[in-house]
């Protein structure tokens, strides 16, 4: 479980996060949704430690991040898996080497077991026969899968995904969403996904937080999303008329 307590973050005079508190539960896919520029990515970067909040605290299973020493923070990082928007695979390494990288850096396994583990992770995300290819030689969807395989290679307790479907076709997006959900359940992870893709919200939104101009505007599940009385949320969710009609009908059924 990850808890946020009154997170504030500003850049110069621009206050991007204005006191966000939330709880992200273990074994669930937790979504942060909102328009572009609402502060989602900044919030996610604060949670994973790439940005330091100006005030407020983050608790990882009741361990306060602000009170952790350097060593504890480094240890915590080995419990984090991250799927970046652009996959962020190391382009000088093959797909297999990318998955092996965290194992080589942090695992105590012998070389043979590290390779076995990397192959297992790649097989788990449905990537076979691409071990020796470079990221530039595989499709965007495969890159996302490889990035997921890298993220889970050290059995992380927390998985973070920054817009996992950006740049993917709808069919591949659904497969990636399903994969993230399956892995979350299988590894009993706390997964936080940053997205504005409504298809993903409908598929994965076990817990949803809606951010609007740096504030947490709404919180609930995907079932509650379409009956919410929040004007700003409705404006965001039903921006697409096609989506509005179809999803409403689907939930009525």
């Amino acid at each position, binding site marked *: 479980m990850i808890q946020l307590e009154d997170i504030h973050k500003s850049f110069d005079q621009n206050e991007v996060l204005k006191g966000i508190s939330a709880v992200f539960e273990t074994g669930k896919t937790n979504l942060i949704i909102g328009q572009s520029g609402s502060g989602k990515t900044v919030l996610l970067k604060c949670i994973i430690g790439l940005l330091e909040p100006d005030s407020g605290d983050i608790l990882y299973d009741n361990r306060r991040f602000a009170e952790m020493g350097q060593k504890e923070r480094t240890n915590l990082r080995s419990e984090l898996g991250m799927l970046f928007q652009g996959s962020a695979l190391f382009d000088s390494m093959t797909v297999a080497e990318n998955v092996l990288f965290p194992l080589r*850096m942090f695992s105590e396994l012998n070389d043979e077991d590290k390779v076995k583990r990397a192959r297992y992770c790649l097989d788990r995300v449905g990537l076979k026969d691409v071990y020796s290819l470079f990221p530039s030689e595989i499709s965007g969807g495969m890159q996302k899968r490889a990035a997921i395989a890298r993220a889970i290679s050290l059995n992380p307790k927390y998985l973070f995904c920054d817009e996992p479907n950006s740049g993917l076709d709808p069919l591949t997006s659904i497969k990636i969403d399903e994969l993230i959900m399956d892995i979350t359940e299988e590894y009993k992870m706390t997964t936080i996904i940053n997205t504005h893709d409504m298809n993903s919200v409908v598929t994965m939104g076990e817990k949803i937080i809606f951010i609007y101009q740096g504030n947490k505007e709404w919180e609930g599940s995907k079932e509650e999303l379409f009956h919410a009385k929040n004007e700003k949320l409705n404006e965001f969710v039903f921006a697409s008329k096609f989506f509005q009609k179809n999803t409403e009908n689907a939930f009525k059924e």
Partner: protein
Amino acid sequence: MNLLQHVGRYSILMYQTFSVPQKWKLFFKQTVKEIEKLGANSLPITFIISLFMGAVMTMQTQMNIENPLLPSYTVGLVTRDTLLLEFCSSILCLILAGKVGSNIASEIGTMRISEQIDAMDIMGVNSANYIILPKIAGFVLFIPLLVIWSMFCGLIGGYFISLTTDLITPATYIYGIQYWFIPWYVYYSLIKSVIFAFVIASVSSYYGYYAYGGALDVGKASTNAVVNSSILILMLNVILTKILLS
């Protein structure tokens, strides 16, 4: 951003870079890769530049010596000392600042904007140490070889002129390049080049590491890396010459 802020950020980056590698095996592997990429791959360009510069120096020295009192072997001597004192360290490093510096800055800059560095940081990897230290180590270790290779190629270039033109005989040229040889000039050149190599690798890494934005910004970072490395090399050249030759 003012100069002091740059110096501060550069110092912090170097502090992060010069920490103990998390995995020595990976560090050595990366260093060997960098030796190949930054060092060994610079051998051909060093060969071409040094050969032609040695040839041109020999011709120009001969053509500009009008005093009949100066012996003809002066051509070889001047070519040798010019190569040893300036060309093979300072000028070669200025040229390599363009090749190696832009390579380092664009590679690290691309890693930064494509979030590869963020990915390492999140994993708990000291990204500065993992990426930059092997580059500095590899280039600094290989630069003495490049300098010696450059000296050899430059002298061969001059010899080629003595063989193919009637400006100077090969025997006189050979005598000239051996005459009044001061071994310290070689050491002086090597010391300078090691310091310049550190400047090129570290300054270029700095500009790449703190690049942000898109492809255009990586290009800007690369340009800044080359320009600032070159300026620093020229300034340090004056200081080192004063210290090492006075």
